[in-house]
């Protein structure tokens, strides 16, 4: 009979035991020296929260929206290759023009982090998923690159990586054959919780004026909830009933 693969490490030898004893002694002499990491205060996943954005288009100029796109590119290391339709596009600039008055407004359009995301419904492997805090992500470990989610998304928020990539950033692993989209800067949220500022918001917010406001839609006391209660917010394609977590003002 074949023996089971050994899951546990071999028993420590007498020598290892003695070395361990020496290490313990050192810890007692100089506590803290042997800690391999002190650990940053990471808040991790908040299961009670539902993160969202409130985007005030009246406060956003065209240059501001361009700054959003650039900041996102810098944060996650994606860039427009040749302007073709297959390029990566985590966030794009959308221009709305009222023909009667000639008024133009510009808005950053990214994954809307729906409460009922169609991209999750259609994913055959479960790679497209909604985190407990409402952020819709692609688990690239299980994504097979079928692109059903790209077809299903009414916001055209996702893109597919066609080329081999190099020089990806540690916070945003991305590679050929997988789908990607806005993550709401999930690495910052996991670190800072409710105080997180996504890269796009960081690029346009100046002092107290927050053209892009990040916050917890579930918390009635949060600034985003208060501002929504006060001034309201538009859900894009509200007729679809997806209840996106990204809301707009001034549309």
């Amino acid at each position: 009979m074949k023996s089971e693969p050994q899951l546990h490490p071999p028993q420590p030898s007498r020598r290892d035991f003695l070395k361990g004893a020496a290490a313990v002694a050192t810890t007692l002499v100089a506590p803290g020296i042997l800690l391999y990491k002190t650990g940053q205060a990471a808040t991790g996943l908040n299961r009670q929260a539902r993160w969202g954005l409130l985007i005030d288009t009246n406060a956003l100029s065209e240059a501001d929206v361009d700054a959003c796109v650039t900041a996102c590119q810098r944060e996650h290391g994606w860039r427009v290759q040749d302007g073709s339709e297959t390029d990566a596009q985590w966030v794009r600039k959308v221009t709305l023009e009222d023909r009667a008055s000639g008024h133009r407004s510009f808005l950053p359009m990214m994954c809307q982090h729906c409460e009922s995301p169609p991209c999750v419904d259609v994913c055959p492997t479960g790679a497209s998923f909604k985190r407990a805090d409402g952020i819709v992500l692609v688990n690239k470990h299980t994504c097979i690159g079928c692109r059903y989610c790209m077809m299903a998304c009414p916001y055209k928020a996702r893109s597919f990586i066609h080329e081999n990539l190099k020089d990806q950033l540690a916070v945003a692993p991305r590679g050929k054959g997988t789908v990607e989209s806005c993550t709401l800067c999930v690495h910052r949220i996991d670190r800072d919780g409710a105080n997180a500022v996504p890269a796009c918001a960081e690029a346009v917010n100046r002092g107290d004026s927050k053209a892009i406001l990040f916050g917890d839609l579930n918390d009635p006391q949060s600034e985003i909830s208060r501002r929504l209660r006060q001034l309201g917010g538009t859900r894009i394609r509200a007729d679809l009933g997806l209840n996106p977590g990204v809301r707009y003002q001034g549309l």
Partner: protein
Amino acid sequence: MRIWISISRSIALLLLLGTMPAGMLSAADAAASGFGKIAIPKPPKPADAEHCVEPVAVMRRDHMKFLTHQRDATVIDGERNAKYSLVGCIDCHNPASASGEIIRYENPQHFCAECHAYASVKIDCFECHADRGLERQRQSKSDAAAWDRAGAGLSVTTLRRRLEAAE
């Protein structure tokens, strides 16, 4: 019958002679000439780290299990800055050298590549993940906020070490 025995004896002798030079060569020569035993890789330890997150014997055997478990915990449950984070491995074992040289996974000297080549293991981690601690090298100490951002998921000790190295 006797002829056959003598033929087989001479074949055996030839085989023996054929194997003798290999036996007489040193292990290094054997590795260099493409046959014989390949030397067991001994990747250098990070100069400024006391020890790994687990004993070496455990890491050798089980690092892939730790990483596979951790990847789901990170993606689904947002568990960053964890004990078994891949970023942590790379950050400690493959920082850019003092001269700024970056060792990539394609380079046989890369910490991960060295043993994987020996064990004939093909991984695709680095088709997506950063295989080097590059972006932290780019930051200057004055840009503390940017540094902090780039270091999301890194331990404070590691960041401090990088800061000192950048000076």
